[in-house]
């Protein structure tokens, strides 16, 4: 249109637009807006690294400063994705090293990262500031040493839950003395044996980082070092302690207590490995300011947990082991009226009998007492439809509800019925629900409820549920907002999948393992839908060595503009035209 603003004005206006969705909308208005927008986009999030190629990204967005990539599907967290499946960041780093000399931020999740890639990152981007490696693997402390040594302006180094091979070598001392820019350091996933030299390198680093706000230590950092670190960083907002046990000496305790009381800005606490209950009061002075408490690495029992939690009146987030028990959750419901997120993890997930008294009662109590509760992850061994009705009625504001009843196919323990009605109540009442994980005994009926009511649901996880294809059909045809669907051990097969093939292009991905989808259906889907990558993952050997009607072991379907990937291991096949021709 002839009446549009000059490019510079539009660019300036667009610079205030941050969210990806808004940016995407802007780029669809007209060709000139598309052009202007793509030149001034600075941040991109790619939810599936195989949906697009580095070349396509660079071609469209030549001036990015921040790139986020996710690799393996979520079920990789539970060892369902075989080693070597993919998710390599190296080709991305190689391409970005050439195209984006001004890149500042790289955030990766579930990707395989090599030391070479880390070295390349450290040398290619002069103004590199933020490296977040979440649940990544494939690198060692040598790679970290390159980052430490070469990134002059590093602000964030966050290795959360990554699998890092510790080769010793004291990589922390590779941070030059001139590096004072650190704001966030998360090394909690690193090993538990460190030399004294590494510990003192850490102390010096913390001491010369006046902007350090987030520090998460690993288990190797002993309790008697913690006080020193805290005194050097009283401005901390988030702290993950190292090991929280030592011989109980009054001077260690009072030193620690004093150090904690000096940290007046602390809002989040985690760590507490091997925590000895008698040491916990050392943190009491800062508890009233805490909004986030993560005790899921600590073996603390119910009564000590309750004492600690009751000091934290302003808690918004609590992660804890099921040692808290129903009684502890009732106390939580009394003390913490601002609670928004609760995660209860199983202390002994493989035990046949429950080792603690944690039942549906605990969650019901929290749903009653905490009006702002919106996010739940709860592992337990029994549940009832009534409890689910109550929770749904109490908390229509739930946005994330993940319930894991440990034994597959467990019915309502009082009525012995499936939990269809209970979960049905959840999806019906909680209209803003975006994420749901199901468990217990479930028939196709629960999927009918989900398809009918869960209109804002974006991610659904299903295991050991359903009776037939009808279940899958309800989900695929009903859940308008569905982006990620992951299914294991359900009797879902070809028909529902083929009848809803078009739906799959509106989603990021679908994972199905130990289901009943035949190789034949996979081939058909791959042929009919060129913009889907249909990956068959089967460690039993080539799928054409078995009858076509046999179910495949695992199936991963995702939309992509990149075409089939070229880095697949021997046990992954992409179903496409070529393959179909080759096998026919």
């Amino acid at each position, binding site marked *: 249109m002839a009446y549009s603003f000059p490019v510079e004005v539009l660019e300036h206006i667009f610079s205030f637009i941050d969210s990806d969705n808004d940016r995407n909308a802007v780029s669809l208005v007209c060709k000139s807006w598309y052009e202007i927008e793509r030149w001034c986009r600075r941040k991109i999030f790619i939810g599936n690294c195989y949906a697009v190629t580095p070349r396509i990204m660079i071609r469209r967005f030549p001036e990015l400063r921040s790139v986020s990539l996710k690799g393996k599907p979520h079920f990789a967290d539970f060892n369902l994705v075989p080693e070597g499946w993919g998710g390599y960041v190296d080709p991305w780093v190689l391409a970005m090293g050439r195209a984006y000399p001004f890149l500042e931020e790289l955030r990766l999740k579930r990707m395989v990262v090599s030391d070479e890639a880390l070295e390349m990152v450290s040398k290619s981007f002069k103004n590199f500031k933020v490296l977040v490696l979440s649940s990544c693997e494939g690198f060692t402390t040598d790679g970290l040493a390159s980052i430490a040594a070469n990134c002059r302006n590093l602000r964030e180094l966050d290795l959360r839950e990554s699998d890092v091979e510790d080769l010793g070598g004291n990589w922390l001392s590779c941070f030059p003395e001139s590096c004072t820019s650190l704001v966030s350091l998360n090394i909690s996933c690193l090993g538990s044996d460190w030399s004294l030299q590494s510990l003192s390198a850490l102390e010096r680093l913390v001491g010369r980082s006046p902007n350090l706000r987030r520090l998460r230590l690993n288990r190797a950092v002993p309790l008697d070092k913690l006080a020193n670190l805290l005194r050097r960083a009283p401005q901390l907002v988030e702290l993950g302690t190292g090991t929280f046990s030592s011989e109980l000496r009054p001077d260690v305790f009072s030193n620690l207590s004093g150090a904690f009381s000096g940290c007046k800005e602390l809002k989040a606490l985690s760590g507490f490995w091997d925590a000895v209950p008698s040491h916990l009061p050392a943190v009491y002075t800062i508890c009233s300011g805490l909004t986030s408490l993560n005790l899921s690495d600590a073996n603390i029992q119910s009564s000590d947990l309750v004492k600690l939690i009751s000091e934290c009146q302003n808690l918004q987030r609590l992660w804890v082991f099921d040692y808290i028990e129903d009684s502890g959750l009732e106390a939580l419901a009394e003390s913490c009226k601002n609670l928004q997120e609760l995660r209860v993890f199983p202390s002994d997930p493989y035990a046949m009998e429950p080792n603690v008294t944690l039942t549906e009662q605990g969650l019901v109590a929290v749903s009653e007492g905490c009006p702002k509760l919106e996010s739940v992850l709860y592992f337990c061994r029994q549940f009832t439809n009534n409890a689910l009705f109550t929770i749904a009625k109490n908390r229509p504001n739930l946005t994330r509800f993940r319930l894991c009843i440990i034994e597959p196919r467990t019915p309502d323990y009082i009525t012995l019925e499936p939990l269809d009605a209970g979960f049905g109540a959840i999806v019906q009442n909680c209209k803003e629900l975006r994420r749901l994980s199901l468990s217990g005994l479930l028939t196709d009926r629960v999927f009918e409820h989900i398809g009918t009511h869960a209109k804002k649901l974006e991610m659904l996880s299903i295991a050991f549920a359903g*009776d037939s294809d009808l279940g899958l059909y309800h989900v695929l045809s009903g859940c308008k907002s569905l982006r990620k669907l992951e299914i294991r051990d359900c009797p879902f097969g070809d028909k529902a999948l083929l009848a809803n093939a078009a739906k799959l292009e509106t989603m990021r991905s679908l994972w199905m393992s130990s289901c009943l989808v035949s190789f034949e259906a996979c081939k058909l889907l791959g042929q009919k839908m060129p913009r889907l990558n249909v990956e068959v993952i089967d460690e039993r050997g080539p799928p054409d060595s078995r009858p076509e009607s046999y179910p495949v072991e695992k199936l991963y379907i995702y939309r992509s503009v990149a075409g089939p990937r070229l880095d697949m291991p021997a046990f992954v096949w992409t179903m496409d035209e070529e393959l179909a021709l080759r096998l026919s």
Partner: protein
Amino acid sequence: MSTRGVEAEIITELRLGLPGNSSSGEKNEKKKKRVFDEMVNDEGNSSCSGNERKNENTEKMNKAQVVGWPPVCSYRKKLIQRDNTMYVKISMDGAPFLRKIDLGNHKGYPELALAFEKLFDCHGIREALKDADNSEYIPIYEDKDGDWMLVGDVPWE
């Protein structure tokens, strides 16, 4: 309205019987169901010592050993197994402090030697372990009888 029509279509195409019901379903479908049932419903033994985690088609699959269930992150699983802690004291001549190490965290002598090297920031322990005759130092430990023993004779387990 149109959904119901398609739904009706689906119903006529699918078998909605209980699993295991033989009807007009093809032989292959039945076979699929059986394999599936075997994979998941097997009674198996209740002991947790079974190590058949990877092989989903084994008959004797322990219920508690279903791969990836319950859905606890592998990162978190490592932490849960901490009850096997076996802390032992390590001293190195010339070092001012002793250190403690958790034997449960290591899977064998070479890993242990690496851990020693990291703790004391020194090299040569791994070589000493491999080839005792040619190196200057040897790693030794004091057993419960108070005798000094050469590291490596007793099998790791």
